């Protein structure tokens, strides 16, 4: 069966510090991978998606970047965090246009 792992679960970082959130998927090959951000109790905003190794598409201009160094690994990064980067970050995978499978998210607080 397929599983998705996302870590850390919570993170508190000062403004200006770097960020690295990691997501890995097991049990499937060549999945589509996604990073979403969710405001408290609200809908999801797509940040990045990837259809293959090294292929990253950005949906919104921002202070963040994403990378896919391996088929089932997706990383969300920032060189210098802003207060506005605080939020709940969710990684997800899908096969073609099938429904999304989400990780349990990372609660990021930038202080």
């Amino acid at each position: 069966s397929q599983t998705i792992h996302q870590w850390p679960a919570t993170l508190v970082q000062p403004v200006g510090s770097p960020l690295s959130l990691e997501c890995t998927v097991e049990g499937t090959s060549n999945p589509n991978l996604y990073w979403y951000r969710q405001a408290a109790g609200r809908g999801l905003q797509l940040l990045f998606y990837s259809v293959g190794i090294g292929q990253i598409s950005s949906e919104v201009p921002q202070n963040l970047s994403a990378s896919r160094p391996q088929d089932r690994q997706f990383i969300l990064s920032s060189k210098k965090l802003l207060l506005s980067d605080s939020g709940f970050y969710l990684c997800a995978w899908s096969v073609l246009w099938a429904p999304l499978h989400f990780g349990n998210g990372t609660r990021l607080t930038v202080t």
Partner: protein
Amino acid sequence: TQLLEQSPQFLSIQEGENLTVYCNSSSVFSSLQWYRQEPGEGPVLLVTVVTGGEVKKLKRLTFQFGDARKDSSLHITAAQPGDTGLYLCAGGLGAGSARQLTFGSGTQLTVLP
């Protein structure tokens, strides 16, 4: 940009009551998905509807896709505290990457014992 509006935004009801959550858009979607999310976790898929007028039942939950494929509803019968959570609808625009998946703003449901 396709928008999905969900209503109500917040809903608090007593155990045993019925409720309906709506998901509306001016855009036509090829599919409509409903997810439920609990605090501190990622959303979990409940159902996918793909045909206009389609009705799917999942125990006490009934999902309907509008005839014109622009709207959907989720009806819960005899709600239970375990139904508490954030309900999200998401519209798909066709085969391909889920980049084309648009999420609604969510309905936060609280079922009081």
